[in-house]
């Protein structure tokens, strides 16, 4: 039980996927213009990562390990993640078309988002059980959501403040992301896992 709580705290704060591990920067910068879009993207990522963690663990344990073909991990995982993302896209287009239009190209980009693949590979590496893997997947997506929403709020305010021309847009966003990353470094040493 303690281990699960520690996994959550570690994944959300201490080893935040975006701000500490620097995975998933593409949607982090691409979808952080408006809070409503950011929240929508966070929802999609939570869904994909939690499901992906479960399915990839099952495939790893019952197919890849059983057959001793651990070297096919990357291909198998990418297949599964890509299909899950496609599923999310189909569902969103049917039920939330405005969010689907707002996310645009960044929705299929969750596929190539190293955060999802990274999470899957990390849980195998850390030899987590099934429950631990799902919790890890869910917590890392929460960490991603936290970083994304925080950053969106900051970016909205900074864009309103009319930065100098040379800094407008992505430039000041990257500097802010770096500062936010440094802020999250303050959490290191919070848990020993």
């Amino acid at each position, binding site marked *: 039980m303690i281990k699960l709580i520690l996994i959550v705290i570690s994944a959300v704060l201490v080893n935040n996927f975006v701000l500490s591990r620097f995975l998933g920067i593409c949607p982090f910068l691409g979808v952080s213009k408006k809070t409503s879009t950011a929240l929508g993207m966070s929802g999609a990522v939570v869904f994909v990562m939690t499901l992906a963690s479960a399915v990839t663990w099952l*495939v790893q344990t019952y*197919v*890849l390990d059983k*057959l001793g*073909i651990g070297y*096919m991990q990357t*291909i*198998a995982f990418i*297949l*599964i993640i*890509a*299909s899950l993302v*496609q*599923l999310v896209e*189909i*569902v969103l*287009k*049917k*039920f939330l*078309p405005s969010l689907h*239009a707002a996310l645009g190209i960044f929705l299929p980009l969750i596929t190539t988002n190293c955060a999802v693949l990274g999470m899957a590979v990390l849980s195998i590496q850390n030899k987590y059980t099934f429950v631990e893997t799902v919790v890890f997947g869910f917590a890392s997506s929460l960490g991603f959501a936290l970083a994304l929403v925080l950053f969106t709020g900051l970016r909205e305010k900074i864009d309103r403040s009319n930065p100098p021309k040379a800094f407008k847009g992505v430039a000041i966003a990257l500097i802010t992301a770096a500062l936010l990353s440094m802020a999250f470094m303050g959490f290191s040493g919070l848990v020993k896992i």
Partner: protein
Amino acid sequence: MIETVLAITCIGFGCSFALAIAAKFFAVKEDPKIGEVNDLLPGANCGACGYAGCMDYAKAVVSDDAELNLCAPGGSDVTASLCEYLGKTAEAAEKQVAIVLCMGTDDVAKRRFDYNGIADCRSAHLVGGGDKACTYGCLGYSSCATVCPTNAIEMINGVAKVHPELCIACGKCISACPRNLIKLVPEKNTVHILCSSKDKGPVVRKVCTSGCIGCTMCVRLTKEEESISMDGFLAKIDYTKEVQNKAIVEKCPPKCIIDTSNN
């Protein structure tokens, strides 16, 4: 070796099977034409057509039978390509440009007081009715120039001027002006009266030497064409007619009539 290939193939088939079922159950019927029409539009999302952006107009064109000549930035080219794609015919709308009906620059028009505040016309208009002595004139704080998506408006000596060759007639400048000085006129009309002051002649003269004094000389000189009429003390051009007698440009005493065909 064979197990590897089989295993991966099975995973692949499993995924595609699940996706196929999902695609069938969650299918969304969308007319593919809408996307293709959207591609034909300029993508400026300016709203001049009256719809909320290009995608909205594309939807209206395909589903609601909207007019095909509403795209101002696209002009006749877009109208033609829309007609071709949908197999309909439509008349290209007349090209319009915006014009600022004021020429009270800082050397001819007085300012009433020292304005110390936000450099925005809407805000300046709220302070004591604006710092220009003429209560109808251009305040010159570039609210129109800031919203123009093509940078077609230049501030010259405290008054806004639209460069017609850059104007896409989106209408954003018209909503930005607190004094309603900007109008959309057909591009082919070259004669304009650059004054909007409804005050009497002597009152106008006190605050601006370029303002219309209501002497009605231009109305008399164009009597046969009936292209100019008086709105109170202000002369106004009827833009459905073309002004033939260009002598009014020389004869106007405060010289507030211009003919842009010379430029």
